[in-house]
């Protein structure tokens, strides 16, 4: 049973560019959440997708956008990249029921030059 998979594992971009990160949820999970983890910090919630709609959003600008596909996989898009966007981007999936733990992938390490 495959867990949460993310691609790519590493990415290097320059300021002003755009990036797309991808996530496949764990089998049986229909809710996908994205988190940003800066070095030495805890993950910060970006947004959550369920039934192909953004359901919740954290304190991130609209340069951060996403999408969920009918197969529950998801993409995170970041436009106009800033140096401060350098971080580990984590995808987590869970069933759409109360008190269900989220399972994380190993993330995409994004470096902005």
């Amino acid at each position: 049973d495959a867990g949460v998979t993310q691609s790519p594992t590493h990415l290097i971009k320059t300021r002003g560019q755009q990036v797309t990160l991808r996530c496949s949820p764990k089998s049986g999970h229909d809710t996908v959440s994205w988190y940003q983890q800066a070095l030495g910090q805890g993950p910060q919630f970006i947004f959550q997708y369920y039934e192909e709609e953004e359901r919740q959003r954290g304190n991130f600008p609209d340069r951060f956008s996403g999408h969920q596909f009918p197969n529950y996989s998801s993409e995170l898009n970041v436009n106009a990249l800033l140096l401060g966007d350098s971080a580990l981007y984590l995808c987590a999936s869970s069933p759409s029921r109360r008190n269900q733990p989220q399972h994380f992938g190993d993330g995409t390490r994004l470096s902005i030059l």
Partner: protein
Amino acid sequence: QQQVKQSPQSLIVQKGGISIINCAYENTAFDYFPWYQQFPGKGPALLIAIRPDVSEKKEGRFTISFNKSAKQFSLHIMDSQPGDSATYFCAATVFTGGGNKLTFGTGTQLKVEL
């Protein structure tokens, strides 16, 4: 605004000892409290979780103690091993709109020495 406060920031424990990490929360809407373990270069891995109607949960060497009135919960790692050396995050969730939104603590770097 830090809704989940975690301490200590770092912890050194001798092999075989007990590691204790504490967390406190403010939002009474939180209804599920997981703990995650993270190794360098990896994503957080679910360790153990508890609901607020339970005061203690034990899984192997890991125990969560939960005090709803004090809005505090803690992780105890018994017989700590060098392989437990990692960063530990407490978290709290609230269920809205089809999913559980996680709020993380700031993390505790645990080192278990021989």
